[in-house]
């Protein structure tokens, strides 16, 4: 994940990775990127930041799963109803 093309508008403030210069929109994403792509080079602070960002991501994913499940059930019942009526 090192040779990418980026497109950062002049007035945007991006968080750049100090190992590969890749810019990110959020600090947590930068922390996750460092942990995933440069695991051997991190100092203690960065490892800590990665762990926190990872935990936060886990809980956000849990919430997303619930919503996705809700959407699935909704699609299922909507189609069921429509097929019953049409």
């Amino acid at each position, binding site marked *: *994940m090192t040779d*990418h*093309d*980026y*497109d*950062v508008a002049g007035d945007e403030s*991006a968080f750049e990775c100090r190992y590969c210069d*890749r*810019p*990110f*929109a*959020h600090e*947590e*994403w*930068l922390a*996750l*990127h460092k942990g*995933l*792509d440069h695991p051997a080079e991190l100092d203690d602070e960065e490892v800590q930041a990665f762990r926190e960002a990872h935990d936060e*991501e886990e809980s*956000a*994913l849990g919430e*997303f*799963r619930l919503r*996705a*499940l809700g*959407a*699935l*059930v909704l*699609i*299922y019942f909507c*189609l*069921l109803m*429509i*097929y019953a009526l*049409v």
Partner: protein
Amino acid sequence: MTSRRRRATAVTLTAVGWLLAMGTASAHGGSLAAGSRESLTIPTWLFLSTGGAAVGASFLLASFVTDRVFIERIHDWGTPLSGGVRPAVWLGRAVGLVGFAAVIGLGFFGPTTPQTNLAILLVWVGWWAGLAMTTYLLGNTWRVLNPLSTIALVLPSLDRDYPTQLGAWPSVVGLLALVWLEVVSPLADEPRLLATAVLGYSVVTLTGAVVFGRETWFDEADPVERVFRYYGRVAPIGRGADGRLRLRLPGMDLSTPRLVDGRDEVAFVVALLWATTYDGLVTTPAFRDLTTPLVDAGLPAHLLYPVVLAAGFALFLGVYRLAVRSSRRTAETYLSPAELAERFAPPLLAIAAGYHFAHYLGYFLVLAPALGLAMLSPLSDPGAVPVYDPPGWFGGVGIAAVIVGHLVAIWVAHAAAYDLFPARLQAIRSQYPFIAVMVFYTMTSLWVVSRPEVPLPHL
């Protein structure tokens, strides 16, 4: 909860399956097999929304898989294949050359009824239906079989520099031109015409290979070679980064970075998908009704077909580019649009392969006995042509193919997004616009197969 989830998918998928079974797809290139699309017993809007909902539901299901290690393991699974390849290559080239000679020779001098002429059957049934199916189901053998590539081996080369800014664009134009030719001309009915077309295409291809060099021409500009190469990437057997043969799970090669390199190659993938739709679109009553005023107003009918072909391609490509832009916003990424377009185009190939299979499997099986008979006695003209009569449940196989194509595409795009973005929710969000595009493509194709088939209007 899991069982409820499973039931939801099962119901959605069966619904789509059942719906598709009602509107059997018919293959083009073939007034040969008289298959006609049947009309639906449910309203069209419901048919289309069920298809769209199935794609959306598959995406939601894929988004439940959030384990990076698991996704990578699935995509990296594979085993190297070895074996004596050299003799097989020579044998393959010989088979390709014999087939080419048969198409030209019997096209000009064989029987004139299409169902008994080996040239017609070999090109449409053996090659465009049969060989293309083995290409995405097993592996790409066309690079060896391709008779023009073999002939180009012994031709001299001027080795002129291929203009790099042209890239894959000649193959995009070439593919659209071939599709147009296939639709508007009776290439599947008149062996003489088919042989002339094959000869014309061979002259163009061999000239290109002589001027720019064999490798360059077949890598960049030849549309047919590119179609087979792209379909081959869906297949389980392919060449790895080291050039050695490797067995993988089908479709997983599509998540490899740099598989599609540049906007020209993205355009080719979209053109391949659009070609499948256009094929059916021109035989719908809606197309006839919409274009009648245009033709009455004085638009030449022969201009109409290429214009619609180009306009539809521009629409499909425009929608894809729009999705790329909007994906940059939903994923809040600084990656360039070109990079996103290249990473998320290859999954569409799985959809194209799924539709190809659904369109051509029945066509292939029905006419395979005729092909066999023509191979045994290429010069005689038997009165009765044997055809295979597929059983009633057969429609389900095509439907399954369409669904599997979508599932593979959604899964591969999911994996590519995980590879590209550090945050997993960001990866999921990056897919929203692409899923919308897949829903649009699916609903367009389903709409086409659900329409009754009418003869090509205005020709």
